[in-house]
């Protein structure tokens, strides 16, 4: 089955081709079958390949497959090659499996939409590109997948393009991530210039051998790679596009902007970790960016009124945790958090989608309420997902993955405790906003007739919710700390990729840290209950204008949109407006004007009068005679 690895990205791409060319003719069932089936088959291939991969001995748990040579020009040879190790295996299992569930969900969610086939075409293209990204054995192919997912993100955010606000959101996403993409491209140029190749494994070994730790080249390359990752993963300072990207349909938000595409940056840094280890300052910067982002996004999530925007800022915050882990060298912890986060964040988004659908496309949480009684199944799955997000102790996957990260952060020499403190504060915020969300949406009384008459979803929605809920709990048990039994499946699996994971804290320190985190989680839940529960302490607290101003500042994402608008957008628009009359067009216009003027001049000689023509003939004769006279 490993030889059939190439099927994994190819099947969704084929699905895209079929749906793009003949989607309209297939009908709803046919389009759904192609769209969901291709990703499902791809998941089967991925799982089978994984099983076979684990049968290889641990230290050589790698499978490479070169499909063909992409181009071979002037000494630059780039193959179309796939590289499967446990890191990319973890990625493709998540992408295809969670992707399959989300595709299944979309069949019901998008059932009433007129562009049904187009939706699945784009989604398939996305899955195919993402799989290419993570399976690529060279950075150029990775960049191809990178750009592919960026394009699909644009297409899917702007899926309901008739509303100009959605177009604007899609453009914003594309342009902001473009900044990161440009940085990534420059990093690729630098790497090629120095090593003449883009093969990732080769780069890792040669860079470690040839570049000194902390050398300028290593620092610049790592910094540019970080910039690319920051753009795609919506971290500071390029995080502004993700909340607006919620303009796309909810399955899109679940798949692209929660589980997979935004984690491409995490994958990139994990893949090129050798380069980051050559620039420790940049690696520390990764952790700092993660820490700052998780706090900023946590505060912003507290003040949102749109259910999807809460989850968007939550995603930004959780990816901040992953960056934090990458920054302290705990790559396996970062990937584990990615793994669990994919499950519970997709669950939360799909649940939010079910809620939105049930309330007749209402997204404002303050127009909901009391949905616990009308949508019990959705409530329970959402609660499981929310618990995982908040890190509810022992029974949720989020607890274990977040614990691992926080433990590794504490044990990091130097800035470790500061980073740990930021992570802990973030956990408090996470518990706070998650409980707030659940309380406002599912508890209390329905605030509108739409919420009062919410109808339960069908099986195509509930089954994915159920599976993801099981995943949100079960995946946690892949990696449990020492004092709880010490399962290490995930870490061991990734050992073949990241041979040097840092030592965690001692077992008793770990237990203490876990206890602190548990306390923080419960404190957050209690605080939120006090603010938003039956007592409704918050409206009184928010009565002061200072508090309201702070809340509105957080709701606007800490003013980054305004900042960027003033710094970049306004000057650019002003510059463009300067040239509104299009000065450059003057040159061809001048040529046309000259031709026209010349024409009018010559036209004067065509009077239509015989006498004038006769006079000209005589003058011509005189001219010729003059020539004869002078010779």
């Amino acid at each position, binding site marked *: 089955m490993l030889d059939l690895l190439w099927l994994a990205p190819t099947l969704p791409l084929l699905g895209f081709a079929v749906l793009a060319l003949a989607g309209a003719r297939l009908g709803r069932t046919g389009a759904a079958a192609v769209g969901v089936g291709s990703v499902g088959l791809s998941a089967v291939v991925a799982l089978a390949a994984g099983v076979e991969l684990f049968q290889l001995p641990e230290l050589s748990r790698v499978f490479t497959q070169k499909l063909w040579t992409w181009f071979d020009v002037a000494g630059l040879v780039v193959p179309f090659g796939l590289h499967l190790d446990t890191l990319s295996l973890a990625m493709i299992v998540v992408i295809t499996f969670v992707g399959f569930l989300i595709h299944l969900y979309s069949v019901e969610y998008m059932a009433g939409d007129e562009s049904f086939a187009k939706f699945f075409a784009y989604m398939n293209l996305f899955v195919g590109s993402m799989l290419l990204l993570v399976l690529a054995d060279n950075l150029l192919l990775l960049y191809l997948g990178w750009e592919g997912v960026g394009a699909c993100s644009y297409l899917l955010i702007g899926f309901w393009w008739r509303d100009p606000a959605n177009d604007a959101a899609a453009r914003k996403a594309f342009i902001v991530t473009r900044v990161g993409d440009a940085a990534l491209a420059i990093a690729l140029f630098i790497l090629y210039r120095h090593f003449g190749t883009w093969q990732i494994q080769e780069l890792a070994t040669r860079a470690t051998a040839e570049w000194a730790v902390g050398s300028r080249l290593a620092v610049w390359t790592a910094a540019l790679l970080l910039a690319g990752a920051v753009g795609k993963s919506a971290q500071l300072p390029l995080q502004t596009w993700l909340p607006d990207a919620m303009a796309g349909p909810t399955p899109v938000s679940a798949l692209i902007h929660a589980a997979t595409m935004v984690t491409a940056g995490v994958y990139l840094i994990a893949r090129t970790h050798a380069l980051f280890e050559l620039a420790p300052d940049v690696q520390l910067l990764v952790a700092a960016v993660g820490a700052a982002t998780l706090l900023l996004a946590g505060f912003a999530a507290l003040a949102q009124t749109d259910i999807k925007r809460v989850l968007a800022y939550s995603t930004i915050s959780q990816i901040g945790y992953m960056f934090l882990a990458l920054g302290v060298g705990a790559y396996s912890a970062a990937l584990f958090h990615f793994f669990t986060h994919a499950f519970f964040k997709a669950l939360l988004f799909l649940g939010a989608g079910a809620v939105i659908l049930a309330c007749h496309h209402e997204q404002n949480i303050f127009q909901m309420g009391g949905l616990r009684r009308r949508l019990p199944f959705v409530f329970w799955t959402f609660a499981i997902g929310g618990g995982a997000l908040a890190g509810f102790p022992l029974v949720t996957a989020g607890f274990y993955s977040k614990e691992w990260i926080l433990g590794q952060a504490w044990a990091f020499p130097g800035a470790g405790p500061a980073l740990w403190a930021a992570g802990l504060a973030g956990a408090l915020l996470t518990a706070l906003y998650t409980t707030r969300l659940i309380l406002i949406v599912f508890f209390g009384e329905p605030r509108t007739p739409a919420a009062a008459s919410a109808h339960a979803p069908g099986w195509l929605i509930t089954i994915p919710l159920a599976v993801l809920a099981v995943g949100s709990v079960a995946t946690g048990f892949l990696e449990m700390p020492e004092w709880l039994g010490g399962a290490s499946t995930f870490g061991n699996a990734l050992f073949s990729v990241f041979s040097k994971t840092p030592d965690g804290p001692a077992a008793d320190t770990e237990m203490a840290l876990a206890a602190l985190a548990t306390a923080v989680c419960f404190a957050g839940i209690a605080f939120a209950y006090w603010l938003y529960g039956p007592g409704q302490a918050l409206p009184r607290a928010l009565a002061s204008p200072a508090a309201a101003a702070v809340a509105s500042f957080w709701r606007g994402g800490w003013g980054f949109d305004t900042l960027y608008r003033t710094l970049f957008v306004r000057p650019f628009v002003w510059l463009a407006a300067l040239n509104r009359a299009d000065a450059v067009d003057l040159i061809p216009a001048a040529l046309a004007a000259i031709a026209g003027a010349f024409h009018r001049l010559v*036209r004067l000689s*065509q*009077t*239509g*009068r*015989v*006498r004038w023509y*006769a006079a000209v003939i*005589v003058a011509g004769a005189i001219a010729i005679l003059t020539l004869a006279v002078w010779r």
Partner: protein
Amino acid sequence: MTATVPVEHVIALAAALFALGVVGLLVRRNIMLMLVSLEIMLNAAGLAFVAAGARWQAPDGQVMFLVILTVAAAEVSVGLALALQIYRRFKTLDADALDEMRG
């Protein structure tokens, strides 16, 4: 008994008549008079030929004059017919009125 005149004088006479014909063609607006000026010019050209024939004592000059005469006759008949048509259509013999070919 014929005169012996310097051939330059005869050609100069022809040139003078031709120049007068040119003036007439360029000045007069009446189509009739333009045709008349054309006749003058043709006649002057024929005179030049005859002078050349007389200089060389050969009949060729006179033969050329005969041909020119034929051309003038044909041209006059067609031209006058055209002038008649123009007068019928435009009710005027003003050559400047016929400027629809202007661009």
